[in-house]
């Protein structure tokens, strides 16, 4: 067993990681699943107790345990709450890896879905784009509406079809050249821009906005056209070896040495991208490359604060009315990367905006990667709570920095017939740089 897999199995994990939990219960109020069920096995300390029982061979890895680990959102709110500093993420990923190795949850449908999504589609940017093109045609022809109107289709399948997000008219490489220089400002930094997988298909505009914001703030933008998925999805779902393959692709795609920073605008990816070195055994070629990489990966908000970004200017003359906005903390930004203040500082710098704090802004919205597809019931409970809190702020715009959250919250707001826009903070900032003097709330135009 090499050192990589040692870190990714409960049985060979350094026992001090698991023993660190003193079951004090400080994690309980932060855990969305425990708060819903009030059952200890659905809590972080309960799950860790089960992991420990397996690691100490007091219990077998059972299907019930496996289901429990897929009932966990992996939101990492417990890591923020834990005063002891238990590394739940490592324990969680090791458990899921063991579960997938054991094949205990395998059934034909699950196998098919996983094989298609995780081991086929998200493995290559070419396949993803081909799939995206097909989806785009399907959606343009109105076939999605047609399928939804078929009376004989099971409700569950219709719901799944409804989950498919609209594919953007262009992919990122069609919007962002491989190299772009600032126009009106001197070039102060040279940064790489990660375009992601889901963002590339659905949110290529956010990628373009990110490039615009970087250029405006004096960054030369390097954006390789072939990037693909970073492997975060795979690491969170017990496919560590695939995660390793995808990481190598990215490490090779960027001229790491030349860059001051490598920028991501997706919270879920960032949380994984910053820890590529964990994937490779110490001393190896890839480990060294990954260590250099890890030091340079920044979330876009983090980077903008670090370099001292320029806030958008207000107009000198007219009296514009203000737009109320709020912000939802994506779990893998606030818990996974401890980035809470930076996006707020950016949003509060915008003119004509009134920023209202969202209650329980750092509680998971239920999206959690593919969780909302696998555990729709719990996911929708959390989503409804989130929508209620958003409603309370009376905001017209809710900002959040993760594609999954953007899609899921948008869905929730629509379901409740609320006319509230979901926007990535960086898109709002990009808009702020191009404001037009219209005489009314400029951000709602």
């Amino acid at each position, binding site marked *: 067993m090499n050192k990589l897999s040692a870190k990714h199995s409960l049985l060979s994990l350094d026992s*001090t990681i698991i*023993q*660190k939990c*003193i*079951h*004090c*219960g*400080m994690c*309980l*109020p932060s855990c969305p699943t425990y708060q819903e069920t*009030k*059952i*200890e*096995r659905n*809590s972080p*300390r*309960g*799950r860790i*107790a*089960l992991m420990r*029982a397996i690691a100490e061979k007091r*219990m077998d890895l*059972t299907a*019930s*345990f496996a289901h*429990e680990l897929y009932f966990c959102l992996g939101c990492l709110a417990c890591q923020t709450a*834990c*005063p*002891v*500093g238990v590394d739940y993420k490592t324990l969680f990923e090791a458990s899921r890896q063991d579960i997938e190795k054991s094949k205990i949850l395998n059934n034909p449908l699950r196998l098919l879905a996983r094989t298609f999504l995780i081991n086929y589609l998200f493995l290559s940017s070419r396949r993803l784009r081909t799939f995206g093109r097909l989806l785009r045609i399907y959606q343009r022809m109105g076939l999605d509406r047609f399928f939804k109107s078929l009376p004989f289709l099971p409700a569950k399948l219709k719901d799944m079809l409804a989950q498919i997000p609209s594919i953007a008219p262009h992919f990122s490489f069609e919007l962002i050249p491989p190299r772009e220089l600032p126009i009106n400002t001197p070039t102060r930094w040279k940064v790489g821009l990660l375009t992601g997988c889901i963002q590339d298909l659905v949110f290529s505009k956010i990628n373009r906005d990110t490039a615009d914001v970087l250029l405006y703030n004096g960054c030369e933008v390097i954006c390789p056209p072939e990037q693909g998925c970073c492997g975060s999805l795979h690491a969170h779902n017990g496919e560590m070896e695939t995660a390793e393959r995808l990481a190598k692709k990215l490490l090779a795609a960027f001229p790491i040495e030349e860059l001051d920073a490598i920028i991501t605008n997706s919270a879920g990816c960032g949380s994984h991208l910053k820890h590529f070195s964990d994937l490779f055994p110490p001393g190896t070629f890839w480990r060294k490359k990954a260590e250099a990489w890890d030091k340079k990966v920044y979330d876009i908000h983090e980077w903008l604060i670090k370099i001292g970004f320029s806030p958008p200017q207000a107009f000198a003359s007219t009296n514009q009315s203000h737009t109320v906005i709020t912000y939802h903390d994506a779990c893998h930004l606030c818990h996974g990367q401890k980035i809470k203040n930076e996006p707020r500082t950016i949003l509060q710098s915008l003119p004509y905006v009134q920023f209202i704090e969202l209650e329980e802004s750092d509680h998971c919205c239920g999206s959690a990667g593919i969780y909302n597809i696998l555990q729709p019931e719990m996911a929708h409970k959390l989503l409804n709570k989130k929508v209620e809190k958003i409603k309370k702020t009376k905001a017209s715009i809710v900002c959040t920095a993760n594609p999954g959250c953007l899609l899921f919250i948008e869905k929730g707001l629509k379901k409740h017939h609320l006319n509230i826009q979901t926007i990535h903070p960086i898109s709002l900032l990009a808009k702020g740089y191009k404001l037009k003097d219209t005489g009314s709330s400029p951000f709602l135009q």
Partner: protein
Amino acid sequence: MASLSFPNEALRSLIDHFPESSLLISKEDLIPYSFDATATFYHAPLAVLFPSSIEDILWVLQWAKSNHACILPRGSGTSLSGAAVPQKNSIVLSMTKWNKILETDPDNLTLLVEPGITTQAVQEEAAKFSLFYPPDPGSYKISTIGGNVGHNSGGIRGLKYGVTRNYVLGMEVVLPNGQVVWLGNKCVKDSAGYSLKDLFIGSEGTLGIVTKVLLRLIPKPQERQVILASFPTLEAASEATSAIIKAALIPSALEFLDQKTIECIEAYSPAGFPKESQAVLLIESDGHPQAVQDEIIRISQVLKQYGPLEIKIAENPKQQEQLWSARKVAFSALARKAPTVLLEDVTVPRSSLAQMIHKIQQISKTYAVEIAVYAHMGDGNLHPVFLGDEKNKDLMEKVFRAMKEIFLYAIKLGGTVTGEHGVGLAKKEFLAYQYKSEEFQLLKNIKKILDPDNLLNPGKIFD
């Protein structure tokens, strides 16, 4: 998971009676109920029941009696004495879903709640009416009122505001014999016979199952100020505390943290504690703004006589909150230092604080056991934290010997082995040192009268 020693047909009748959604019996469900927040005690229950009515509780009591099983009423399982760890043939009665506010009565300043509500939710409800529920245990965000009543929980505001006992006006209790009784009422005064409710406060679930609690609220203090004072020695900080009490100054909190504790807290979330000092005092004054101003000045004057390195006053409510939140995670944060941490809560008369602190340092050296100390200094309640390692038998042996010596010394000073955590499993060995035999017998007699079949949480407080 059927226990080997427990008859299967008995368990069957339990399973048949309750719906699947309210009774947990699988191994994966029971392991997470085999502990509370205390190190070293583990035992899985036979089953976990979420009762949906008083009838469910009565049924399971009868069932336990017929089948020689026992019942452990449980809140969030954050007990620090092992009181919420199941023993042989235990059914855990989880009250966490009984978490409603039944009545807020601002005319009488009372709040009627179910036992599974969290301490924080009670504090928040009180605040909605500009009222105040002072008991404030470190686990307040998740600890339940039922658990607080069971342990007579304290917290940081004990010296001015007292503990849970001082805020319980009444309760509904299911007795082991199946009777449901109401003890207490909304009256401020009540001399009608024995104060029976008081018997159940601090009883650790050994006498009855509390199903409703009537709480007393007080007006919210208008103003708060927080002082942070650092000292070059532990003794100087202890003596300063005794001097504050002697000057008849009663701040709303007077907390002590040693250097090890500060270091761990700062590692979790930097709150601005001075890392280089040997000890700090965190003092809060609350009440009428003028009285607070006056008290802060007088406390500062006393502090200055004991050679502080620095005296700071928190500038705004945000800074105050930061210091208190940081203080409340002290215990868990100390777990960064060692694989196994044992937290005790010996309490001594406040004139003896410096002596007790000094003795703890001595014992730590004698046994070569690392002991961190933080304390609710103002009420004499110390938290020595023993840094051990469950896997190192030699070290644990030394830890327990050091612990015993600390307990005995506290008793010698006229103190108690537990100020706020309760006896549970962790301290029952030492109770006999604190009580004379006839006093100890009195405790046991009360249990015998109320629970002759030993159905409720047996083996806790005493055997």
